């Protein structure tokens, strides 16, 4: 399995973060795992990385329902950033609201990054497949 330098998890639920981290660690795919509790923290950090020409996380696990800045708001800002590389964005949500599915399709069409929609819970068996860099 190809190693990925940085994976980033954006979720306000510590249990989910714990779970994903644990699964990622178990397959040992990433050098580094960064976590943010809402979209605002994440976008601010990533924007700084882009400005400092640092390496951008290649795979992002993104929750939708978060305080302050939710997943969609984050996505809106993220795809606007000048990132040439294709980033794999895994939306991880327990929502079955069709609205969210529509939003996903909308953003998927809007960007060159790869956006995937995943319902919780993420199973160990799935994690390898979805954590491949785009």
């Amino acid at each position, binding site marked *: 399995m190809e190693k990925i330098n940085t994976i980033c998890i954006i979720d306000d*639920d510590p*249990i*989910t973060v714990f*779970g994903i981290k644990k699964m990622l660690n178990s397959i040992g795919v990433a050098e580094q795992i960064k976590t943010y509790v809402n979209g605002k923290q994440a976008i601010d950090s990533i924007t700084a990385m882009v400005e400092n020409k640092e390496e951008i996380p290649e795979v992002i696990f993104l929750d939708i329902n978060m305080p*302050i800045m*939710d997943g969609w708001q984050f996505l809106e800002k993220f795809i606007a950033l000048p990132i040439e590389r294709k980033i794999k964005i895994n939306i991880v949500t*327990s*929502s079955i609201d069709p609205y969210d599915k529509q939003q996903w399709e909308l953003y998927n069409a809007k960007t060159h990054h790869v956006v995937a929609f995943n319902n*919780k*819970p993420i199973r160990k068996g799935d994690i390898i497949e979805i954590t491949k860099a785009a």
Partner: protein
Amino acid sequence: MLRGNPTVTNNYLIKQLPLATVYLNRKFEVVYVSDKWIDDFNFAKRNVLGQKLDTLFDGIDAEWKKVLKNCLLGKVSDKGLQHRLAKDDEEQWFEWINIPWYDEKENVIGVIIQTEDITHRIQSELKVEKLEILLDQKSASTKIGSWEYDVVRNKLTWCSITKDLHEVVQNYVPNMDTAINFYKEGFSRNSIAMAVDKAIATGQSWNETCQLITAKGREITVVAAGKPIFKGKKLIGLVGTFQDISNTIETASKNKQQERHFKSIFNSSYQFTGILDIHGTFLEVNETAQKFAGLEESDIIGKKFWNAYWWPVPDYVKDGLKQVVKAAAQGEFMRSEIVVLDKNKNPIPVDFSIKPVYDEDHKIVSLLAEGRMIKEMVKARRELKVSEQKFRALYELSPISYILSDFETGEILDFNSSFEETTGYNKKHLGSLLIRDILVKVPKRKSTQIIKDLTTKNYFGPEEQQYIKKDGSKFPVLVSGSLVGNKKGRKLLWSTAQDITESKHSEQRIIEEKILLKTLIDNLPVNVYIKDLESRKTLVNKAEMEYSGIKDESEIIGKNDFDLYEKTSAKISMDEDVKIFKTLKPMLSQETISVKPDGTTTYFLSSKIPLLDDEGNAKGLIGISLDITELKRKEEELRGLINVTSLQNKKLINFAHIVSHNLRSHTANFSMLLDFLVSEEDPEEKNRIVTMLMEASDNLLETLENLNDVVAISTNVNLDKKPMILNDKILAVEQNLTAFLKNNNAIIINEVEDNLKVNVVPAYLESILMNFITNAVKYKDPMRKPVIRISAKKNKKYTIISIKDNGLGIDMEEHGEKLFGMYKTFHNNPEARGIGLYITKNQIEAMNGKILVDSEVGKGTTFNIYFNGKN
């Protein structure tokens, strides 16, 4: 004046002499004079004694001088005639004698002149002469003019007839030259000139027939006669007569011409004409007849009339013709239509007549036989017959009854079969049937009018009357009549009567249908009206009248929308009308709004259909409006209800998603953690997972609690709202929060009126106030002491409570949409759970209110809560 001088005896005697006498001395000076002489010569005003004769008479002619000188020699003159004109231009004639005057010694001492005034005698003589001439002319004609010529004065006088004959004006003054010049130049003028000369020279009278050209240039023929008049040997004048004989001459020439004319007419006439003697022998026959027969005149003349070849069947026709000739010869005028044969033996119908010709003594001298070809006439008659037959057929077959009656007596003289069919009478009833038998008595006023029309215009009608059938039943008819006169002067009335029972029925039907229609229209549950081109109402039904609030149609007829409705809605309606008149397209089922001047608004479902005239032009429109105000209101209500329902439905779905999301996120965590736990071998890690499972379980419980709260609000649809004094509630909340407010140094400024009431669910109001006040403090700006300002105002529908803080503020662009969403938090406040505003909003909406936010980051937030006064 010496007259009557008594000193001279002689003088005295002479003065009284009955004869005009004057004594002249040898110098021809007046010595004695008789009064008569002075009178005769009109010297009464002059002194004549001692005057010379020469002076008195303004000179005397040589002849008289000679006579006087002879007298002085003792010679007695012959009687002489002298003519003079007195001062007043009166003509005078004198006979005179001059004798010598001797003294005692027989010496001639002068001349005695005796004169006698014979003017009267002369004039009488002239008259006699004229009379004689006139009598000489023998003619009875009154057109005889006379003339006289006075030689002495060279004066020609024409009487008025003479002037007329010359065609000159009555004051025309002729003279001898011009008179002669009237005669036609040449023979006539010469003859007259010579005759006049001869008459003067030899005393011979004349009588000439000459041509004369009148002043007007007309040539007439006259007999001019004349005669010189002498007194002694002296020519004193000419008298004559003058007669126009042109007519006589013309008559003679006319006779000749007439004969020519007659002959040409006789021959060129299209009639066959023959003249027979009284025994029927042809004396003459015209060329037409000859040509027709193809015979010469000589073939016919002298033959008997009935032997002419053109009679078709000789024997009995001959006898008949003999009888006819005989009758004509006895003075009868015979006429008949017969058939004769032309030269080709073709039978030709002829109108034949024979009549007697009388002479002046009323004796029949000949017979005039005439024959006129009547081929054309026969043809015309045949055509007439055909057309009469046609008329007859029409008369008989016409569906209209024709009745001929005597206007005076009312007797019915004829009628056609239509009359028979409609009335049941037949021709057998003629003679006993009177107009009044078939006519229902007409009111006096009407019958007077009919008689007046007939006598002034010769016709009447059409009039609606009623006829009576034979069986006594009555039926309506439309009658016209016209008055005609027959040959005998009888006034006949032709009446035409049209049975209008059927049209009466249909009229009745139309009326019934009209009533039906009116009833129908009136009872329709829609408003119906008709408008003219000016958009004025010409008909309205009951519903429309009720809507307009009127009792009688007349109150609305003639009014337009501007008279009936408020300006704006009237304008819209009139515009619709104009468009319909222009396009002729109906407006169908359109929702319209009519606003009456008092503001009453009615919603209609209106249709306007153009009414067209025969030529397809609009003459108005029919309007049909259904009052849908109630329907509209219900629809509005329904729409509101649908809105609420769909809103709630949306909320419900949203809620369902929230529930599912929240529950799923927890269960997903459970599932994941349990998965880890099963395969975890590290006991420390296992402990950590178990702790997390417990955390997850707590979260799930909390979530369920929250959901329970929300469900409680959302399911309580029919909440009991009560009017609450707002300030009481604010104070209560303030009391509860005293410690919290104090710890945060927060101040509440309450600007709400003391007694302001809001219609709310009390618990909700408390919860709402609590939530907003705590939020305002929780999200305070750390640099400022929190100040919360509460105010309230009322508008028509809502009581609006404003809660204004000076806290952190919210980025409305970023979060506006999610502000009231469940589990939405916007600040990095660890205590924020994202449930308070969600619940608040639900509570407000459950009370039919709404909430609006105005916020700016760094300045603060204002929540405006709208409480609906209604339940």
